[in-house]
């Protein structure tokens, strides 16, 4: 009885892990695919799947057979003891020893290729050229599947990366600062209209930002803010503030009353209390929201597309442009995608704990 329960438990453990491993592989393979592709030479990317760098069996050309001029190619042709028509040779015939013979090119070519199945793998030369191509802004050349040299302009992803930093860093800090001030005001200061104003903020939590794009773009064009960093910081502040204020309010309002009261008795002003007491005490909440907002800004496409557009384009816009152009330069697209992903991945993986905390605190965002 005891042993059967134990073995049942063990088999349960096995299947649980089995299912999870399968799901994990499904989740990881897509990323692995573009990671490997981004390091492969362009010509190989065009002609073979990324998985071919793993060891696998493949038909390798081992020999070529020419057909003597005396043989009539319109009739049956005998090679290696097998007789078949041109069409059959053209589709290819497998020999008993595993070799595979196929006509090469058209009828007049009079040549066949002998393939043999062999183990290959790990023989691809990996390269950083795709990355230098896509990061730089100059003209680049690479080879396509047929070996032709293609020349095109680079996508200057390096510049886009800097722009994304210029959007994301202030775009994260500014709303947090503004929200922290507001959260303190709502939590600890008395003023007329406090209730109704905060209720409106709660209502704004899930308002879709689409509602604002057209009117705000009009304002921006009129004010000359379109395409400027200031414009996009303000827009992101506007769209992020309801959640930021709400989350920070929830946190700041739980700070014990006694701490603040003793500070007031010591004669500290609101401003001093805020900068010396509230901000340092709120660091965990601020950090949670900061990671949240940073990832949201870095990965944002719509807002950047509308308010920055061509001028000061961010990584998401640069990658999307690359995809839209022709959609076939996979060696460039994959390396560009990786450049755009690397910073959020590092931030995310190193600060996951804070991120999860922020996620828990504010599950519904607009």
């Amino acid at each position, binding site marked *: 009885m005891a042993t059967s329960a134990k073995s049942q438990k063990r088999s349960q*453990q096995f299947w*649980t892990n089995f299912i999870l491993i399968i*799901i*994990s592989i499904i*989740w*990881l*393979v*897509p*990323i692995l695919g*573009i990671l490997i592709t981004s390091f492969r030479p362009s010509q190989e990317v065009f002609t073979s*799947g990324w998985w071919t760098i793993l060891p696998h069996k493949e038909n390798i050309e081992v020999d070529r057979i020419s057909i003597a001029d005396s043989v009539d190619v319109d009739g049956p042709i005998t090679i290696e003891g097998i007789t078949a028509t041109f069409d059959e040779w053209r589709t290819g015939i497998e020999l008993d020893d595993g070799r595979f013979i196929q006509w090469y090119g058209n009828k007049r070519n009079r040549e066949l290729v002998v393939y043999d199945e062999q183990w290959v793998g790990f023989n691809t030369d990996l390269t950083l050229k795709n990355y230098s191509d896509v990061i730089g802004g100059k003209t680049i050349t690479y080879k396509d599947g047929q070996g032709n040299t293609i020349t095109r302009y680079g996508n200057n992803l390096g510049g886009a990366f*800097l*722009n994304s930093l*210029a959007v994301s*860093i202030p775009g994260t*800090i500014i709303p947090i600062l503004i929200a922290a*001030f*507001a959260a303190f*005001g*709502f939590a600890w*200061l008395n003023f007329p209209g406090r*209730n109704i*104003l*905060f209720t*409106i903020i*709660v*209502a*704004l939590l*899930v*308002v*879709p930002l*689409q*509602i604002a*794009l*057209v009117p705000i773009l009009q*304002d921006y064009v009129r004010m000359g803010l379109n395409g400027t*960093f200031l414009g996009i910081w303000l*827009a992101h*502040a506007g769209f992020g*503030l309801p959640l930021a204020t709400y989350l920070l309010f929830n946190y700041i309002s739980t700070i014990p009353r006694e701490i603040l009261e003793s500070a007031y008795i010591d004669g500290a002003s*609101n401003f001093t209390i805020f900068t010396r007491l509230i901000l340092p005490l709120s660091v965990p909440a601020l950090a949670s929201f900061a990671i949240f907002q940073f990832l949201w800004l*870095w*990965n944002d*496409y*719509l807002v950047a597309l*509308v308010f920055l557009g061509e001028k000061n384009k961010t990584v*998401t816009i640069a*990658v*999307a442009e690359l*995809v839209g152009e022709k959609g076939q330069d*996979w060696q460039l*697209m994959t390396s560009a*995608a990786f450049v*755009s992903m690397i910073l*959020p991945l590092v931030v*995310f*993986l190193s600060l996951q704990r804070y991120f*999860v905390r922020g996620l*828990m605190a504010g599950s*519904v965002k607009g």
Partner: protein
Amino acid sequence: MANTQNTDTEQGGILSWFSSTLGQILISLFVPIVTFLVLWQGYLFLQRAQAPQIIQVLVAIVWGVGGVALLYVVANWLVLKLPKPWSSRLQPFVFVGPAIAIMGWFLAVPVVRSFVASFQDRLGQEFVGFDNFVFAFTNPRMLETFRNNLLWLVFGTFFSVAVGLLIAVLADRTHGEVIYKSIIFTPMAISFVGAGVIWKFIYTYKGVGLNIQEIGLLNAIVTALGGNPQPWLNIPPWNNFFLIIIMVWLQTGYAMVILSSAIKGVPAELLEAARIDGASEVRAFFNITIPYIKGTIITVVTTIVIFSLKTFDIVRVMTGGNNGTNVIANEFYLQSFTYTHKGRASAIAIVLLIAVTPVIIYNLRQFNKERKGF
């Protein structure tokens, strides 16, 4: 202030009081003006954009963050210069004012402006009654977007939550929980545009022909199993599902994390009691765990539903909304910026707003319940 008032009875005190007040006023004017000029110079520097990009970016960061902090300091300083009742009355607004002004400008007022514009023509000059809403609810393009958004909403949400729940439950019983969860969670850090590239590569199609090797994973698998390669993203209505898979890939991690922490909150005694009563694991899960975490499931479902209603980037990058994959947010984008039909774009935005209204009402109710004595 108090000191100057005490001295103003003395001879000449009035003069010194007057001059010091004048000085105060001058300083009060001078400081904001200087602040404004400094910030304006920074703005012009960034506009001219002649310096190397790295310098510009650094200046932008310092200017943006420093500027906001400086504005608060100056505003607070100014308010404290005011006579007592005024300064204490106005100071709260130094704290909450900027946030309210920005939220008003960027969210609250646009609701009204979009509402008005939704009853106007393409340039926002004449009122056209309900024409834009008639378009929104009868035009075949729009009906297609509604159908597709419904697919996103139902299947995207269902699979994100179901798979997320499955992983949360299973991982809870293994030693490798942290690793499994990290792997599933990782796509959350990836932009929709990046995810678009990743999956477009999986679905890519080279065509049928001699000696063509498929480089897309899905077609390679299909051909290896003896099938014919397909242009997956061009086959309506199934292409919608290939796009929805991307959303599931991105959002499952979110559902998993939230649900996982809820599952850990289910009291072990409850589950143990059920097992002793002879309930199977599956029954214990459906009769105890699920009811216990119902609230969390509702939250997760709501968040993902809202997300699926606003889905844009994935469709924009993968198909541009062609071949029967258009969605509301993409049609909104096309109407606003490609066809520049302000009226229709606004009507679509209002439709989106109406779709999330139940959530707004729910949030407000919850908020009022939690904060009776706010």
